[in-house]
């Protein structure tokens, strides 16, 4: 009997309970009569109301001694014992105004027309609009490029570096003693990739991003360059500060975890710190950031404010998340992930939105929900995300 309990059952139980408590309305009583026809076993409750009072009394007394808060703490304790150390971030599917009664389990919004359109496309291009996947291009020291995709198993060689590629991560720790070479990892629109640098630092790259890095770190600092959006979990090494160059901004870390995003409005660079401490500097200014805070570096200098850590981690955990993001930014994020062109034909209000959704959802589902949330008409046409 593993099927879920029907909501009707719950309704039936509620009605019967109301009846025996003597707290039932005329309308509800009629509903109850209908239920009796469906579930004849309920008759025994209605006809004869001999409740085992002594038992109920005893249990009620027990329930009154329960400390709900204390038991919740037990639940949390058991949960933390079971789960891994990896932090889990949950996104709240929030609504600005109305309730969106959309239940999307992959594919119920298939637009037949769209499929026909894309069939006419060239075979080399990806014909469906799919959510992003693990894919990247690695450029070696001699300029040769190689495509990295999920579930690949092969070896990459550059000078005396031998890298084993397996699954969806590129791990450089094996190359830490070889002669260092400068490599570049590019993630296209609609892609994402995870790389582990020679010192053990983990970097996740979001769609349309690039990381330039040495295959191993020599000297007294570890330096990499990034464009786009990346999440860093820096390995501890007190002797060698880890520095990330983003345009004219430099982020210095000492064993921390943070997210850098350059896909922002007005070409600002946003760094959100989740653990540890970092120093964010531009040619003109610098600021030290504490966890839970973000630095936005742009033409006006560096502004520090409280950060939404969910925002930093959402994309890495597989969610789109926006809290107070302008619609333009949200649409850009979506377009980048699904590898679409953004076509906005109306002026966008400056209203801000809160919401979240899984990145693995179909584009149709995303459009449906965004349309409901924002009351614009957002659709996919060919390779464009159209906003009316």
């Amino acid at each position, binding site marked *: *009997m*593993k099927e*879920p*309990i*029907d*909501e009707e*059952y*719950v*309704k*039936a*139980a*509620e009605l*019967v*309970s109301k009846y*025996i*408590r*003597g*707290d039932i309305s005329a309308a509800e009583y009629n509903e109850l009569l209908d239920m009796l026809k469906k*579930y004849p*076993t*309920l008759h025994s*409750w209605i006809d004869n*109301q*001999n*409740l085992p*009072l002594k038992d*109920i*009394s005893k*249990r*009620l*007394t*027990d*329930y*009154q001694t*329960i400390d*709900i808060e204390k*038991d*919740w703490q*037990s*639940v*949390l304790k*058991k*949960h933390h014992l*079971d*789960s891994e150390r990896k932090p*889990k971030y*949950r*996104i*709240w*599917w929030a*609504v600005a105004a109305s*309730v*969106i*009664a*959309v*239940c*999307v389990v992959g594919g119920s919004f298939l637009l037949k027309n769209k499929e026909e359109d894309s069939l006419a496309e060239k075979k080399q291009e990806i014909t469906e609009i799919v959510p992003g996947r693990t894919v990247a291009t690695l450029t070696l020291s001699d300029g040769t490029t190689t495509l990295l995709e999920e579930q690949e198993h092969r070896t990459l060689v550059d000078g005396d570096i031998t890298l084993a590629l397996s699954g969806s991560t590129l791990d450089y720790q094996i190359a830490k003693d070889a002669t260092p070479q400068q490599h570049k990892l590019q993630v296209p629109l609609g892609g994402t990739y995870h790389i582990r640098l020679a010192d053990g630092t983990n970097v996740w790259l979001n769609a349309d991003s690039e990381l330039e890095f040495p295959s191993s770190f020599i000297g007294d600092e570890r330096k990499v360059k990034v464009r786009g959006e990346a999440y860093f979990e820096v390995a501890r090494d007190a002797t060698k500060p880890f520095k990330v160059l983003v345009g004219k901004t430099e982020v210095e870390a000492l064993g921390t975890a943070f997210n850098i995003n350059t896909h922002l409005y007005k070409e600002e660079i946003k760094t959100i710190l989740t653990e540890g401490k970092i120093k964010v500097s531009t040619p003109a200014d610098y600021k030290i950031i504490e966890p839970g805070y973000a630095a936005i570096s742009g033409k006006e200098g560096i502004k520090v404010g409280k950060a939404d850590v969910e925002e930093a981690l959402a994309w890495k955990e597989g969610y789109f998340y926006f809290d107070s993001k302008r619609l333009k930014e949200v649409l850009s994020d979506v377009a980048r992930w699904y590898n679409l062109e953004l076509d906005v034909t109306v002026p966008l209000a400056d209203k801000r939105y809160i919401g*979240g959704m899984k990145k693995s959802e179909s584009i149709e589902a995303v459009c449906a929900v965004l349309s409901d949330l924002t009351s614009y008409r957002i659709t996919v046409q060919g390779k464009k995300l159209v906003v009316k």
Partner: protein
Amino acid sequence: MISVLTETQIKILFEQYYIPLVEFSWHIVKCQDVALDIVQDTFVKILEKKEELPSHEKAIKSYLYSSVRNTALNYLRHQKVQHEYYRIHPLNEIDDARILDAMIYAETIHNLYKAIESLPKSCQEVCKLTWLEGKSNSEAAELCGVSINTIKTQKKRSVELLRHRLAPVFSALKNFILIFF
């Protein structure tokens, strides 16, 4: 609407539904300690799974009842020691009708519990002693360290309050209370 819940939201569900779910689970496993564990384990699973929960009340309730039922049934299946009860009532007899009964008890107990909790503390104590534990007015007076008149007044207040909040009081209990007056 489907949503992925935060820990805080799950805690709110816990606070709201813990008591009825424990009662529900009790009807399947017939042991208070186990019933508590089962509901707690169910919430641990909810925390872990990052599941998408519906946000419509009836849908949440049926989801929670289903989860607890499944956890309880799994527990029973893995029981090494055969509980006396299950030698007489084997697992396959836990059918839909019994689940329905268990939910009815759960709903009822929950309402009763909320009604009592809503009473002022002094009334709660008197209620517990007199009509739940069956103590006489004089016994209750002694236990609470007050006069019999105080007990009578508190009881009167309780009946009035319950009449109002659990209005009308469910029939069996109504009889119970009237006996004391």
